[in-house]
Every structure is written in C-alpha cells, then in structure tokens.
C-alpha cells in the first residue's frame, strides 16, 4: 500500500521485538483495558444490540452484493448536489487525482481530517513529492506526523505512546511545523490538547483546501458522513473553499435510514461513547456555507479483489471502529506496528493480505497473527467472522489457488516455507488411509518413547521452538481398547 511499510519483516519477527519493550506493553495494556470495560458498558445500555448488529451486517452484505448499482446511484446523487465524482482503480491513481485537484486551486498546502483511506494510499508522501504539504489535524495523527512515527491503531494511531512521550514529541518537533509548544508544557492530557489546539488553529484559519475520508456515503441522497471527536474534522469540512474526500467504495450504504443503525453501533464500539462529540453530514455543496467545491474520489485499491473472494469479502463490511483491536490478546502484546500496515489488529490481519495480496513476507504471515480465540468476532458491530477469514487465508497461503489481483484472475502458488507442513500432511493422509501402517507406526512410537527428543531436529525446529511435543503414551489407544474391552475389564 504505502512505501512506509515496504520491507517490513514478517509478523513473528516484528512482534518479538515489540513484546520485549516493557514501556510499549504497559502503554498498550493500559489503553486497551481502559476502553474494553467502557465499551462493554456502552453496548450494555442498548437492549437490542444483537438486532442492531444483525441489521448492520445485513445492510452491508446487501450493499456489497449490489455494489455496482449503489456506486452508480451515489455518483448521480453527489453530482446532482453539486459535487464532482472521480474514480481511482488504485493508490497511484487516487494520489494523482488529489494532487491535480490541489494544484488546480493554486495552493501548496492542505489540512487533513484523519482518514484510513488516505493513509492506505500514502497520500501525504505522494503530495509531498508534488511539493504539497499535508497537515494532519487529528491529535493522534499529529503526534505520529510530528514524531515521524507510524500509526499503530485505527482509532488512536499514537496509542503506543504514553503522555510523557507525547509531551516530548510536542516539545521537540512542533516548532518546525508551526507554532511551537509552550516551554513549560507538562504531560497533563488537557495541556497536551491545548498545545495541539493552539498549534493547529492558525492552520485551520488559513487553509484553503482540505482532504478527508468518510465513514459513510448514502447512495440515495449523496450524503457523506464524518464521525469525529475533536472538531478538527468540522474545521476541515467547513472552513476551506475546496474539499476533497477520498473514500473506499465499500463505504456506501443504500439509504438515509441506514445511518440509524451505524450511528448507534459505531460510537459505542469505537470510543465507547453513546455518541461521539461531533458528526458532520454534507450533501454536495451548500450555497454560502462551507466549501464551494466538493470532490469525491472513489477508491478501489484492492477492494474489488477482496469482493471476489467468497469467504474474505465479509471484511468489506468493516466500519473501522477498532473494537477488535482493543480486545485482541495478540494486538495487546505485539502492538500495531508489527502488523506492517495501516490496518493493524485482527481486522488488519484479514484486510491487508486481501487488499495487498499475500505476495510479501509480512502479508503472508498476517493470517497467522492470531490465536483464533474469537474475541474479535464477538465484539464486531457488523459481525465479521474474522477467525473464519483467517483460517481461509492461511489455507490460501499454504495451498495457493485461484484469487483475483488488480481485477485479474490469477492462480497463487503455495508460499515457500510451508513445504515441511505440506509434506507432513501428505504423509498423514497416506498413513490414515492404511490401518496396518498406522498400527505398526504407533507401536513403534510407543516402544521408543524414552528415546524421543524434546525438540524436533532440522526444519521442524522452528515449529517445536514455540510448542511442546505431545508425549507418546506407553500403549496406543486402540491396543488399550482391545486389550481391556474398552475399559470394561477394569484393568489399566
């Protein structure tokens, strides 16, 4: 997706470094446990949560199943309301469209609302290459941008940093980007928020162009929705003269009424609030209120490839709430950076390998970045069966098979590094089909049990490095069953 993540090591290697960092683990544990309890309370307030979740799933499934129809309808509605719709098949095309639109305004800087889609396509870097400076205005994005860091959480990209670390970034870096942080800045969250308010206000007041994403797009009305907390979104969506929104094609919903489901489930799932502080809804342009020009860039970038996978397509229901990250035992320990993608955590482990394919080491390892405990599925407000998709993608990595990449049907080759596993499975298939061989093998194993090593030699070493080898019993089960008449003889 973006250059930032090129050459990332596979998940196990990146995670090993992360779990050895006690500060990082402390930060993640504190943050995820804080939000977990709050989310459970917020969800518990709604007696019909299960029905809302089911309706959300159905709305998204129905939309995906008729995605072409709703995209065309959305284009008509947005255009009728005074907006301009652009289509981008991949990241490069989306970046070129945005850069051209910004240049046409004559401006060389933009303010940005937090947006996963623009991170996914590496828009900031692409704009920089064109001489356009993009200022992130979400507090956590600002922290990441100032610290030249990478985001580690969908909702709170700076979750890996604690307040002291954030203060240090503000003190040392803010001056280079604009108004410096106060000399006597402490690590009190309210003071940090105040420093960000002052630093960004001058940028909001002079900005002529803004770039956003959107949480929802309503096909029937052409309405876009941005859900936020701080007011930076409202600043970007209303003060500049030109607004460019880059939105994944799966963010469309058919009707205005559909928002009644997601505006109940999204805030409670993400920040554990009954409602987030600010939600903006706009339909095209409004005379003398807000931007005079509105551009919508509809982004594919691997989404149609994901849609072609009958099991994996459910990942496109995702509304980016990040509840699955907050409950995940693997995310809590490994942190977001180990996932090598702007989409970390369980949803990232199924989304990134589908959007980008499983060609790289990191993407091929992501379906394994899970214990399959299922907590992610439990909390998902659109009921994405993440464990099911993880297992499906593991199978694709090991076995290869048909898939769609950039709109073309391809046959993936089995990944390297799984040869021993495939050989073991072939051997097992042969043995289980031959009872005599199985019996002979089991007896041999029982008699030689004292000689068995504690770890496997050769290529098996990596496997037994993190697992105990099963102990072989003194007598095979089937022999014991026959000898004791199924245990009825009362003998051991």
């Amino acid at each position, binding site marked *: 997706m973006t250059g930032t993540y090129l050459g990332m090591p596979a998940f196990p290697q990146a995670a090993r470094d992360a779990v050895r960092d006690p500060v990082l683990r402390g930060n993640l544990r504190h943050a995820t446990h804080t939000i977990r309890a709050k989310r459970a309370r917020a969800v518990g307030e709604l007696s019909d949560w299960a029905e809302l979740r089911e309706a959300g799933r159905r709305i998204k499934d129905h939309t995906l199943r008729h995605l072409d129809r709703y995209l065309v309808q959305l284009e008509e509605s947005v255009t009728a309301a005074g907006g301009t719709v652009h289509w981008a098949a991949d990241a490069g095309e989306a970046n070129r469209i945005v850069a051209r639109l910004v240049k046409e305004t004559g401006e060389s800087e933009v303010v940005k609302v937090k947006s996963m889609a623009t991170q996914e396509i590496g828009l900031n870097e692409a704009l920089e290459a064109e001489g356009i400076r993009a200022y992130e205005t979400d507090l956590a994005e600002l922290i990441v941008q100032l610290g030249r860091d990478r985001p580690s959480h969908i909702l709170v990209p700076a979750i890996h940093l604690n307040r002291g670390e954030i203060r240090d970034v503000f003190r040392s870096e803010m001056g280079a980007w604009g108004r410096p942080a106060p000399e006597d800045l402490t690590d009190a969250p309210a003071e940090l928020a105040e420093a960000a308010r002052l630093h960004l206000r001058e940028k909001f007041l002079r900005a002529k162009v803004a770039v956003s994403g959107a949480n929802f797009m309503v096909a029937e009305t052409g309405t876009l929705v941005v859900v936020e907390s701080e007011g930076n979104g409202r600043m970007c969506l209303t003060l500049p003269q030109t607004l460019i929104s880059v939105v994944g094609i799966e963010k469309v919903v058919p009707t205005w009424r559909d928002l009644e489901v997601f505006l109940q489930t999204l805030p409670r799932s993400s920040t554990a609030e009954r409602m987030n*502080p600010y939600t903006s809804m706009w339909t095209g342009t409004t005379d003398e209120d807000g931007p005079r020009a509105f551009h919508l860039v509809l982004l594919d970038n691997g989404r149609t490839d994901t849609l072609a996978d009958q099991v994996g397509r459910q990942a496109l229901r995702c509304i980016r709430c990040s509840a699955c990250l907050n409950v995940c035992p693997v995310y809590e320990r490994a942190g977001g950076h180990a996932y090598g993608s702007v989409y970390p955590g369980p949803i990232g482990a199924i989304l990134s390998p589908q959007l980008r394919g499983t060609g790289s080491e990191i993407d091929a390892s992501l379906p394994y970045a899970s214990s399959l405990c299922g907590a992610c599925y439990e909390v998902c407000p659109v009921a994405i069966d993440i464990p099911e998709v993880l297992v499906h993608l593991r199978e694709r990595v090991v076995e290869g098979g048909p898939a769609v990449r950039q709109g073309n049907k391809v046959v993936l080759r089995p990944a390297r590094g799984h040869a021993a596993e495939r050989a073991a499975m072939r051997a097992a298939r042969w043995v289980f089909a031959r009872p005599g061989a199985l019996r002979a093998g089991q007896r041999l194993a029982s008699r030689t049990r004292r000689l068995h090593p504690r770890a496997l030699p050769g290529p098996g070493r990596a496997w037994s490095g993190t697992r105990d080898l099963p102990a072989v019993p003194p007598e095979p089960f089937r022999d014991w069953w026959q000898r004791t008449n199924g245990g009825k003889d009362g003998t051991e």
Partner: protein
Amino acid sequence: MSSRDRVLGRVRRALADVTPDDRPYEEAVRRDYLREHGGPTARRTVELLAENLADYRAIVHRSGASELPSLIARLLAARDAGPVVVPSGLDEGWLAAADVTRIPDRAESTPADLDRAGSVVTACAVAIAETGTIVLDGSPDQGRRRISLVPDHHICVVRVPDQVVSSVPQALERLDPARPLTWISGPSATSDIELDRVEGVHGPRTLEVILLG
C-alpha cells in the same frame, strides 16, 4: 477504458457467483431493532436528554420563555469573552437583555473574523435524549456551520419538548439530508491520549444547552 468502467467492471466480475436478488431493499434487510429505548413520556425524555448532556460535560440550564433573555445575558456576562456571533434568524428577544457586541453571521466573514468572537448563540433542529445530542441543520436561527465551531463558547437553545426525540432513528426521520448537518454531543473532546476522554480540543470547549419550555 475509464477508471469508472474499470472499477465497475471489476465489481460486476467479483459478484459473478452471487445469485440475483431483486427484492425491494426494505424487504431484503430486516430491521428487528427498537425504534427507541424506553422514554415512555415526553417529560422523562427531556430529563434523559438533560442527564446525558451533562454526562458528557455540557452545562444544562432550564428556562421559561420569560426568563430566557436574562439567563442568556447572565451566561454571556459570566464569560466576558468578547463579541457574540448571532445567526440572522435568531429570535431577537433572546438577546434583548444582553449588553454585548454582536457579530452577524455573514458569508463575507473570514474564519479569522469569527476567531475574534468569544461566544455564539444558536437554536437547534432536533435533540436526541438517548445520546445527549443536539443537531444543527443550518436553518436561519442556527446559521452557517462554522459559527458554532470557531468561538470557544456555544449556547444552544432547545425548545422542549417539541424539539426532543428519544432516539437516533427518530432524529433521522426529522432531519433533511439535503441540509448540512452537525451533530453535537458535549463539548469538543479527544480520546487520543491513552484512550481516555479529555474535553476541549478544537471545537467550543464550553457547551451550554438551555432547555426552553
């Protein structure tokens, strides 16, 4: 081939396995969830709105029509924060008792002009009790979206019980999607530092809601 055709073509090929389903949308998607959660009486609904607004740090006042001008005057004087932005269609009586400089909501004003204002007074389109939300729709008594954003102090008058609904579904029924809408639930806040909520970032740091009725 245009990118539009390319993306739509990919979508259609990706869905080749899906069996056609031409049921009307509202039949295809069942909605078994509730239209509202409790809130049996109008009075209880207004109480719930007040509780939930206060829970997210909005300051809630109650007022009859006759005390409203003096209440608004008192709230503005207590802030002593400078000029007040006034939407063009705001009930003139509401500010009758306030001795403040007024900045009209005009298209020509720059964001920097608005930044000099200390407060803004608006009405609202609808308020949602279950979530503690007020919604502005840009009507003349609410003004442009930016006027309730740039000043640091927002006083919003909600007519109760007429403008109050229980739930999000009921609010959407009352709203016009063609208008620019701003949903406000408490003052500006962030959860970006250690996933804990802190009030006060870019929007108004003080939100005062007057329940008028």
